[in-house]
């Protein structure tokens, strides 16, 4: 039975299954939507998933690594390896449009797409995820997790967090 079940596993079914693995610090988006899963290969029944860290000190990396492995095992695959690569370096540009909407609904301003030209200044325009005003001001470029900065909206007076561009 187990062998038969394994035969049906394709790279596509694994990608689909990994949609259920959420970023532990932002549980509304998956590791696939965030661009954290880079590659899935199957070779003679052996599954290799390649992931990349978002911020290199992110404490959620271990959790995501273990969750990805457990999720593939749950499909009936016994031989699973989760590898980590630094190249090419993760960028917030890889976050999908759907995930950006989810981040916004979660109260996290999504990062602007920068196309590789990362604008790290204090004066980036950040749009309030609550009222869509650009009249916002940075309070702290470091927030409760490595990937977040803290802003206040001058329009609706709401403090909010931004997913930092990387």
């Amino acid at each position: 039975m187990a062998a038969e079940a394994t035969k049906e596993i394709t790279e596509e079914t694994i990608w689909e299954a990994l949609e259920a693995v959420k970023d532990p610090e932002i549980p509304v988006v998956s590791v696939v939507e965030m661009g954290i899963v880079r590659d899935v290969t199957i070779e003679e029944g052996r599954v290799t998933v390649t992931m990349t860290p978002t911020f290199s000190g992110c404490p959620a990396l271990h959790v995501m690594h273990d969750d990805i492995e457990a999720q593939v095992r749950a499909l009936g695959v016994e031989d699973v390896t989760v590898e980590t690569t630094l190249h090419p370096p993760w960028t917030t540009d890889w976050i999908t449009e759907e995930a950006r909407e989810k981040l916004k609904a979660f109260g996290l301003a999504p990062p602007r797409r920068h196309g590789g030209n990362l604008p790290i200044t204090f004066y980036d325009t950040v749009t309030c995820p609550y009222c869509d005003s650009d009249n916002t001001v940075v309070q702290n470029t470091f927030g409760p997790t490595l990937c977040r900065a803290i802003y206040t909206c001058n329009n609706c007076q709401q403090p909010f967090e931004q997913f930092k561009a990387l």
Partner: protein
Amino acid sequence: MSPDLEQALAARLLALADDELILAHRNSEWTGHAPILEEDIAFTNIALDEMGHARIWYEQLEALQGADPDSLIFFRPAAEFSNVRMVELPPGDWAFSMLRQYLFDSYELVRATQTLESRYRPMAEAAAKIRPEELYHHRHTALWVRRLGLGTEESNGRMQQALDSLWPAVFQLFAPLPGEEQLVAAGYVPAPAQLQAAWEREARPFLEDAGLRLPPDPQAPATVAPRSEHTEHLEPLVADLQEVARLEREAEW
């Protein structure tokens, strides 16, 4: 790779890793104690980032020579750490910790930039990962140096005092390791002089614009201590860092 080259590379990776680890540990000592809540959060984030960078370098060392990162971090005697002295010094006041972090961030940023084209591919990849994170640190700590340097008489005085004590120590970051010339020749790492020149082009005018007087340069490089020689501050730091792990060697986390 020849055994000599590999040895030199291993020494460089260990030095990079140890600098980041020890600085991260020092910075983490501010967690819960920073002057304001926002800074407590920010500096803890920065400490965590540097810990992440340390991990990258320890893992590259492991890939090269099989050294287990946990053993290196938790079970190595203090005397065998190869960090520079400036990162092991106690946190001092806020001005000292901010200036130390600025000096290190500006150095790390220059090093990462010059390492992007390294012919040792893992190093180039690490540099590309580290660089944008350092941009965030650098922008943050540079602001603090300006804020305090150009602030009140008290804040300027404290920043100046911090610079007077850190300036002679900073040049150890640029001192070549034994065998480093082979790494430079192989195109693995930037030449120390080139690194230092680029750093000084940024740091000297920046510090002067922040209302600080640059102390006289130390008699480099003759007086730069080797990385095997530490101050009395490293041993208690390492004891603290390793205390829990050493209680139960086989414990799983």
